[in-house]
C-alpha cells in the first residue's frame, strides 16, 4: 500500500516534468507540423545555462530557466526563420525538416561538448536535498519544485493557446496559411512566435531537468522517444491530452520500477504507446 | 430495366452519434444513367463512399453484379469494375498526367488491359477527356478544371462497368459541363452504368434516366426526372420554391 501510493505520487511528479519537456513539442510537432527532433537538445542547453549561472553566480536554477526563456524565444524565432526560408517557402518541409533538425541536434550537442566537455553537470540549491514528509508519502523537493513549475508552465501555455487570438491562430496555421491570412493574421509571424514559444519552454524544462538529475550534452537523446511518444499519445497538439499522456507515462514507469523491476519500464511505457496507437490511431485525445 | 448491376440494400452509416445514411435501398440497371441529388449534407458522398469502399457501412449490403462486395476493400471493387471520381480532386502529384492513368490501367484494369497497350489506352482516355496535350505535364501544376478532368480520366482508365462521378462539374463553365456530359454519355453508350452526383440541375436533367433524391440520410424519392421535379417532397427539401 505504502509502496503503491508512493509509486503513484512519484509517477505524477515525474509525469509533470515530462509534460514540461513535451509541451513545446506539442506546439512545434503537434501543431506546426515541424518535426523538431532537436527539441530535447534545446532542453539540454537550458540545463547548461542553469548550471552555468548556478555554479558561477549561485542563482536559483528555476529563476535562471525563467530569465533565460526570452533569449530562447529569440533563438527559436531565428531558427524558424531559417527553416522557413529553406523549406516552408519551397514546400519541402516534412522530411527535409526532419533531417535539418537532426543536424541542429548534432550541432548543439557538439558545441556543448566543445565548450564544456562531456562531464556530468549538476546544480545546487538550498532546497534540493529537502523532503516534505506526509506520513508514509515522502515528497522530495527535488521533484516537487519541478512538478510545481512544470504544471504552472504547462497550464499557462494551454491557457494561452485556447484563450487568446494568437493561440488559436497557432492551432490553425498549419492547416491553411492563406486562410489564416484572410483572417488578418500573418502566418509566418504566427509560426515564428509559436516556435519561439516552444523553444522558450525548453529553457524552463532544462532547468528542471538538471534539478532532478545530472546532465551531459547527449542526454537529450533519451528524451526524444519519450517526448515524441507523449505528444503522439496525447493526440498531437492537444495540450490536455499531452499532460495526461505525460502523467500516464510517468506513473507507468514508476509502477513498473516499483513492482515489476525497473528494467522493463521502457518496454511497458512504449508498449502502451504502441497499443494505444493500434486501438486509437490518433492518440488518446486526437482530433479528426 | 435489365438485370441490376448494383443492389444497395438497407445501407446505414453513422459518424459518432450522427446518422449520415439511414437504410438506403437502391438498384441500378446495367448501363443505366442515374442522377443522385439531395441537399448538402444529405449523404450523397457518404453513400458513394460506401459503394466504392472508402467507408464501410454499419448495416446493410452492397451487391455488385451478383457478388456481395460489402466487405471488399476498395481496390477489389475497382478491379471488379466500380470506379469513382472524387469531389475534391486527388491527383497523384508526383506523377505526370499520363502516369496518373497508368496506375488504374496497371491495377484496376489489370487483366483487361494488355501490358503493351497501357500507354496507348491512357492516351486514348486523355484524348476522350481532352487532356492529351497535357499528357506529359506534372499533374500538380494543373488548373482546377484540368484536375477535374484528370479525376474523371483516372476513373475511366480503370475501365469500369459502373462509374460514380461526384460533382465532376461543380465550378465548370457551361461549355465544359457540356463537354463532360458528352464524355459521360459516350461512355454510357459503351455500356457503362453511371451514377452522377451533381447540383447543376441542367446537367442532371439532361443526363439522368432516373433520379434518386436523398434527404438527411434517407431516400425520399426515386423516379424519372419529370416525376421527381414535380414531387412535392423533393420540391420542399431540395429545389425550393
Amino acid at each position, binding site marked *: 500500500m505504502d509502496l503503491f501510493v508512493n509509486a503513484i505520487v512519484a509517477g505524477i511528479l515525474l509525469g509533470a516534468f515530462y509534460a514540461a519537456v513535451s509541451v513545446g513539442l506539442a506546439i512545434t510537432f503537434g501543431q506546426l507540423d515541424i518535426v523538431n527532433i532537436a527539441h530535447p537538445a534545446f532542453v539540454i542547453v537550458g540545463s547548461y545555462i542553469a548550471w552555468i549561472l548556478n555554479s558561477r553566480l549561485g542563482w536559483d536554477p528555476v529563476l535562471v530557466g525563467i530569465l533565460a526563456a526570452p533569449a530562447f524565444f529569440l533563438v527559436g524565432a531565428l531558427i524558424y526563420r531559417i527553416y522557413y526560408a529553406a523549406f516552408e517557402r519551397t514546400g519541402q518541409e516534412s522530411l527535409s525538416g*526532419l533531417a535539418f533538425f537532426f543536424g541542429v541536434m548534432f550541432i548543439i550537442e557538439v558545441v556543448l561538448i566543445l565548450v564544456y566537455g562531456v562531464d556530468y553537470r549538476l546544480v545546487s540549491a538550498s532546497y534540493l536535498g529537502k523532503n516534505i514528509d506526509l506520513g508514509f508519502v515522502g515528497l522530495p523537493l527535488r521533484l516537487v519544485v519541478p512538478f510545481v513549475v512544470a504544471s504552472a508552465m504547462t497550464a499557462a501555455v494551454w491557457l494561452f493557446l485556447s484563450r487568446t487570438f494568437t493561440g488559436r491562430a497557432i492551432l490553425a496555421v498549419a492547416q491553411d496559411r492563406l486562410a489564416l491570412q484572410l483572417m488578418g493574421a500573418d502566418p509566418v509571424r504566427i509560426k515564428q512566435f509559436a516556435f519561439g514559444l516552444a523553444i522558450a519552454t525548453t529553457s524552463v524544462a532544462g532547468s528542471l531537468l538538471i534539478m532532478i538529475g545530472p546532465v551531459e550534452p547527449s542526454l537529450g537523446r533519451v528524451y526524444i522517444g519519450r517526448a515524441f511518444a507523449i505528444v503522439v499519445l496525447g493526440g498531437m497538439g492537444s495540450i490536455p491530452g499531452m499532460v495526461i499522456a505525460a502523467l500516464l507515462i510517468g506513473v507507468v514507469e514508476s509502477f513498473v520500477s516499483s513492482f515489476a523491476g525497473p528494467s522493463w519500464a521502457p518496454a511497458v511505457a512504449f508498449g502502451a504507446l504502441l497499443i494505444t496507437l493500434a486501438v486509437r490511431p490518433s492518440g488518446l485525445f486526437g482530433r479528426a | 430495366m435489365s438485370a441490376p448491376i448494383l443492389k444497395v440494400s438497407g445501407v446505414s452509416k453513422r459518424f459518432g452519434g450522427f446518422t449520415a445514411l439511414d437504410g438506403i435501398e437502391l438498384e441500378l440497371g446495367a448501363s443505366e444513367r442515374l442522377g443522385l441529388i439531395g441537399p448538402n449534407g444529405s449523404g450523397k458522398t457518404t453513400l458513394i463512399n460506401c459503394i466504392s469502399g472508402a467507408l464501410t457501412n454499419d448495416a446493410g449490403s452492397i451487391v455488385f453484379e451478383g457478388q456481395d462486395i460489402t466487405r471488399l476493400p476498395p481496390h477489389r471493387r475497382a478491379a471488379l469494375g466500380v470506379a469513382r471520381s472524387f469531389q475534391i480532386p486527388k491527383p497523384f502529384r508526383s506523377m505526370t498526367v499520363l502516369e496518373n492513368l497508368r496506375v488504374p490501367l496497371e491495377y484496376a484494369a489489370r487483366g483487361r488491359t494488355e501490358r503493351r497497350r497501357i500507354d496507348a489506352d491512357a492516351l486514348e482516355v486523355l484524348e476522350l477527356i481532352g487532356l492529351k496535350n497535357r499528357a506529359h505535364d506534372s499533374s500538380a501544376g494543373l488548373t482546377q478544371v484540368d484536375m477535374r478532368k484528370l479525376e474523371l480520366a483516372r476513373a475511366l482508365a480503370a475501365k469500369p462497368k459502373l462509374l460514380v462521378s461526384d460533382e465532376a462539374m461543380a465550378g465548370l463553365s457551361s461549355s465544359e459541363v457540356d463537354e463532360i456530359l458528352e464524355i459521360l454519355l459516350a461512355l454510357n453508350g459503351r455500356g457503362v452504368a453511371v451514377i452522377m452526383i451533381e447540383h447543376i440541375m441542367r446537367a442532371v436533367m439532361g443526363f439522368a434516366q432516373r433520379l434518386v433524391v436523398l434527404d438527411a440520410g434517407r431516400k425520399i424519392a426515386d423516379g424519372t426526372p419529370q416525376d421527381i421535379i414535380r414531387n412535392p417532397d423533393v420540391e420542399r427539401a431540395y429545389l425550393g420554391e
Partner: protein
Amino acid sequence: MFRNRGDVVFWIVLGAVLLAGFGVTQTIANEYYYTAIYAILQATIMAVAWNILGGFTGYVNFGSAAFFAIGAYTAVALDKWLGLPMPFLIAASAAVCGLMGLGVGYLTLRLKGVYFAIATLAMAIVLETLINNWDYVGAAKGVYILTPEKVPFFSSYIQLLFMVMLALTLGSIAISRYLNASRIGRGLAAIRDDEVAAECAGVPTLRLKLISTTLMGAMMGVAGAPYPFFVTFVDPISAFNLFVAVNSIAMPMIGGTAHWIGPVIGALLVGGAQEVITVTVSSELNVLIVGIMLVLFITLAPQGIVGLVQKWMKRRKR
C-alpha cells in the same frame, strides 16, 4: 530482367563492380580499406532499404536501428546456438527482420504520417528493452563473437566480409532499382501521393505496403547480420545506436528520395565523408561536420543531389 538498354547497362555495371571487388581482394592486402568500405556498404544497404519505405512509399521509419540490431542479434543467437555458416545467418536475419517488417506493415493499416514514424520509434525502444533482458545473447552486457583466423579464397576474414557485404549491397540496389521502375513502384508512389485515391484506382495498398515494409525490414536485417562478425563485440547500446537511424534517414535525404540512385549517392557521399573524417579530423569536429553538412545540404538542396541534377538537366534542355 532486361526490359531496355538501361537495364543491360545497369547489370553490366553491377557485375563489373562485383568482379572488381573480388579482383581487389586478390591483389590488395591492406586490411584497412576493406574495413573502411565495409562501413560504407553497410550504410548503403540501410539507406536503400529505408528509402523503399520512406522515399518510395512515403512512410517514415524512425526505427531503422531496431531492424539492424535484430538482424545482428539473430545472427548472434543462431551462431551461438547452431553455429550456422554466414549465408544461413544472413538468410535467417532477412527472414526474421522481414517478418518484423511485415508486422510494422500492419501498423500502416491504421497509422499514417507522423503516427507511424513514432510507432516505429516506440517499437525500437521496446525491442531494445527485450534484448537488454535476454541473457542468451548477453543482455545488456553484450556478447563476444570469435571469428575464424583463416578463410578460403581470401587472405583475411575482413576480405570475406567485404565481399559478402558488396554482394548484398549490389543486390539491394538492384531490388530497389527494379521496384522504382516497376508496376509495384508506381503503386507505391500512388500510395505516397494519395492512399485513398490509390486504393480506388485498384492499387492493393495494404499488400503493397506490406511488400514494402517486409522488403525494407529484410534488407536492414541483412545489413545487420554480418555486423557481429565485423565488430566481434555487440551490445544493445551500440547495435540500437541512434546514428544508425539518423544515417539511414539522412543519406537518402541528401541523395534524393524519389529515385533509386538517391540513397546510393547519399550513402557513398556521407558514409565516405564520415570514414575520411574519422581518421583525419580526430575530435568532436567530426560529429560537428556531419551535423553541419546535413543542415547545409538539406537547406540548399532540399530535393537531394538527384533533385539538383534533375533540375539542372531540365534547365539545360530548355
